[in-house]
């Protein structure tokens, strides 16, 4: 009788567990799990009442039923916990997925300013020359006639002076018309070898569509033993390729500057028409970018160099012109209008 009773209890527990397993399997959310927990482990559950009534059983049966009941309780608790954790994670994941986020709302941008286009191009060119071992030299913008003209082989009444319309501060003090005076100033203070470039502002008394009274140049000067015209060509070709691109052709045309001889103007092939001739290059297929030449030996006399021992070359290029050609800017004046919409493009 007692055995039967026990068997009955164990059987009902087993069935209860089966029910539990079924229900848990069907549980879809943590709420279901909670309900199952109440149903199978709560006060009114079979296991609760079994334990509650265990006192009524014989002392032999007590431990058997007690042990078995506890095993089921533990099993159910574990399974509930497992299921609950799984469902929680699914629900959490679902909640995350349900968030509506507009990924394309404007972000909080850090403020971005801009270097001036002229500064950027100067720095770029400085980097090219610094890489070739050049130093960067500077000189005054208010300059004497001596350094701006006289010592550059351009005495008073020289016809080339008329090419430079000059701002004067007094009879013999002026705003430098080019960066070339720094050639003399540097050579006065340094013995060869000289490898320098000189970026800076220069001034000419000209103000119209294609002239501003102030603009920017980079001067270059090399004086060393055995420097020749081929070295000038190599250096300027290399630089032109770096600035305008490897595929540009470079040509040298004879020209005249009082302080170089032989003198040259350097052209690169037009990027727009590939040399065929267009409006930008006035049909020639070429764009003039710089003036250059072998240093005129007369200059060495002013700075006490031995013309038989050293030779050199010099060049000058207009930064605004480089910018215009490279970026297609068509009005020189826009460089100095400082319109933020212009500045921000570079």
């Amino acid at each position, binding site marked *: 009788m007692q055995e039967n009773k026990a068997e009955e209890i164990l059987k009902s527990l087993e069935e209860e567990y089966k029910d539990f397993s079924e229900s848990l399997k069907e549980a879809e959310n943590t709420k279901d799990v909670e309900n199952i927990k109440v149903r199978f482990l709560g006060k009114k559950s079979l296991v609760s009442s079994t334990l509650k009534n265990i006192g009524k059983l014989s002392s032999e049966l007590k431990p058997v039923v007690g042990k078995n009941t506890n095993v089921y309780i533990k099993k159910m608790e574990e399974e509930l916990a497992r299921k609950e954790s799984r469902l929680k994670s699914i629900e959490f994941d679902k909640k995350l997925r349900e968030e509506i986020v507009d990924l394309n709302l404007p972000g*909080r941008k850090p*403020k*971005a*300013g*801009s*270097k*001036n286009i002229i*500064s950027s191009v100067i720095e770029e060119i*400085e980097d090219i*020359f*610094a*890489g*070739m*071992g*050049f130093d*960067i030299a500077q000189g*005054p*913008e*208010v300059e*004497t006639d001596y350094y701006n003209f006289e010592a550059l082989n351009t005495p008073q*009444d020289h*016809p*080339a002076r*008329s090419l430079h319309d000059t*701002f*004067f*501060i007094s009879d*013999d*003090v002026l705003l430098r018309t080019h960066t070339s005076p720094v050639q003399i100033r540097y050579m006065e203070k340094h013995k060869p*070898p000289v*490898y320098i470039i000189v970026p800076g*502002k220069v001034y000419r008394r000209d*103000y119209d569509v294609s002239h*501003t*009274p*102030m603009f920017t140049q980079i001067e270059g000067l090399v004086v*060393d033993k*055995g420097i020749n*015209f*081929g*070295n000038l*060509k*190599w*250096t300027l070709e290399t630089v032109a390729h770096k600035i305008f691109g490897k595929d540009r052709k470079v*040509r*040298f*045309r*004879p*020209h*005249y500057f009082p302080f170089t001889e*032989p003198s040259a103007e350097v052209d690169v092939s037009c990027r727009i028409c590939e040399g065929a001739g267009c409006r930008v290059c006035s049909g020639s297929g070429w764009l003039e970018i710089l003036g250059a030449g*072998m240093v*005129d030996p007369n200059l060495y006399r002013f700075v006490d160099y031995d013309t038989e021992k050293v030779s050199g070359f010099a060049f000058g290029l207009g930064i605004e012109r480089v910018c215009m050609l490279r970026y297609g800017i068509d009005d020189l004046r826009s*460089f*100095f209008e*400082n*319109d933020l*919409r212009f*500045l*921000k493009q570079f």
Partner: protein
Amino acid sequence: MRLTLNWLKEILGRNDLGALDIADILTMSGTEVKKVEYPAERFKNIIVGRIIECSPHPDADKLTLCRVDAKERELDIVCGAANFRKGDKVALALPGAKLKNTVIGTSRIRGRVSEGMMCSEEELGLSDESEGIMILDDRFVVGDGFAGAMGLDDVVFELEVTPNRPDCLSVMGIAREIAALKGIGLRFDDPGYSIAEDKGLDILIKDFGLCPRYSAKIFSNIRGQQSPVWMQARLKLCDIRPKDLIVDLTNYVMLETGQPLHAFDYDLLASPKIIVRAAKEGERIRTIDDNIRELAPGMIVIADESGPVALAGIMGGKDTEINDATKNVLLEAANFNGPSIMRASKSLGLRSEASNRFEKKIDPHLTLFAIKRFEDLLAKITGHAESSGIYDSFSPVERERALTLRPQKVNQILGDPLSGQKIMEILNGLQIPSKKEGDNIQVKVPSFRYEDLEREIDLIEEIARIYGYNRFSSNPPKVNQRAGGYTPYQKAVRDLRFCLSGIGLSEVINYSFISRATLDRFMLGDRTKELVRIINPINEDFEFLRPSLLPAMAQNVKDNIKYRIEDLPLFEISKVFKKAKKGKLAQETNMLGVLLTGRRQKKGWNSEESFYDFYDLKGILEYLSQRYYPQQKLLITHKEFGFFHPAFSGTARIGDIDIGIIGKIHPHLSEKLEIAQDIYYSEINLDLFIDNIKTEKHFKPVPVYPSIEMDIAIMVDEKIGSHEIEQVIWDAGSAMLKGVRLFDLYKGEQIEKGQKSMAYSLTFRGDDRTLKDREVEVEIERIISSLSKNLNARLRQ
């Protein structure tokens, strides 16, 4: 300078020269061809025709029906002009011709067919206005192309002749270049001159320095007439307006030889005596352009015994000008001092083809050659033969120069070896005689290149130029390795530019110039005392060199606001100028200007609108100070400047160096500038700022113990500066105090009037241990008691 292909062909005696080839070789030898023009293109389908019949249009009063012989066939033309007769030769535009952008076709005019058009000079673009159609003289042949018949079937080159090559300001000079480049044998030999023995003209040169040579010839019994069509055409193509034969000839010979000529009406001269002298004070002359010119000493004049008759080398005088009644002509071919002509032409503001040539120094040997050419052309055109010998006055000058050329030096300069043979070939091509002498080449520079070939290097340039620059090889210099690169100063400027653009500022670059009016408006105070002034400014806006970057940057604000760009964080790195204390140059100082105006933040979906204020600007200075002077403190000391708001105005000091100023633009100034928003501006003396940067840095071990933050809030008199409070805190704290940060500032109702509440977060850290709470409490107590003792501060509960 302009010249034409046919002219060159004529001088070179060659017919096989292509226009583009000539343009290319000239450009690549140093005489840049700026433009190549084909004037005949305008006259396509325009031919010489002859009117063989004409009768009034039956249905129109002012129209005439013409039958015109066009050689191939006869055409009916309806014409509106009235200045022609049967038999006249005319410029006939056939259907397809293009006149002033209108294509001519066959049309019906008042019911009659017109198979083309008879053209006026104006319609042909040959003159600005004309009456009636152009009537051609008998020499024109019916059926010939009009352009060819007019001498316009030519190619015009526009050349840029460099200032060292006055010889190239002529067809002959350019022909010489082409001859050298193409290996054409060409020589201009002395034709032989008949020098006058008589005293028909007396030439008195007062100063051979001003006029090394004066040659002249008298042509008698000249008949006034027009120059031939071909000559007029060439002059026009070279931008010279034809006048009459004599004047046209002077211009033509000038273009051809490079020697300016002037023709006087001999009978209008007061005496058969030409005096070349410096102008006297107060002398005047009416020049042929009908202007009265005040002459200044130093200008050269041609005078007769009554006074100046020409402004030497620049322009002739009206009173002795060639005119319809001229019978006897005095032709002048002179050589004047280049610099004198340049100065005179500059001070008179009068440039001419002649002055342009004299300025660059012309070969004095050319005078006779040009007179002879004039004479030959005159004889060829008119058969005229009545002339005197040449009167010639000059001071003998050395015009031949012997130079030694070392082939080894040529190669040293040019890089590629050229043989002595090749070098001499090039020189000979340029008509520069040379011969080998040992290792060297002896060169005789001829008179026409005397001015520009003075030294061996000048010859080397000639060789490189004719050989072709692009034939030399390119080689990297054989240098010893050099470090090169940037000085610390240059690095700092680059870094500054990088940082400032990185934190949102845009770099402007303004002109160095400033006007008196702007200086006054900005009340720049002491800075306007030692201004650098330009004596020849473009206009008053450009009269001074700026002593501050502020005015131009404020103008940038104004200019941008015009386009509704109102939020402007800007900076500029440029020089400012003042008179130097020593020497004649200026004192040039590199300055950094930083300007903020407008919104710091626009309203956005997740941000509120906010505007720049003084502390944004100060924050930038703090950033720079911290970056370059991490050990030093930035301190602003209140100081008034005329252009700043009196309260927001001060000097900025780092350590013990005053590096610049900072403030808010005075509301009055903003109002004057018509800028309705606050502007904050700081100007830093970059030379001082950068020169004092200590570049050395030493590593400090990273702290390993945690720090503790404690907050305190105090109430103090509102006049006490935050830097004073901070100083007391730092002084009272021990080495454990590592940071002081103001996190709240309050003035207002909650607290006593005249007081402010300042709340600080203090950071403590032990270098060798984790601090205990008690240690920090002791610190705080000490700090508070010091604040109370020194600043009468009370702890705010």
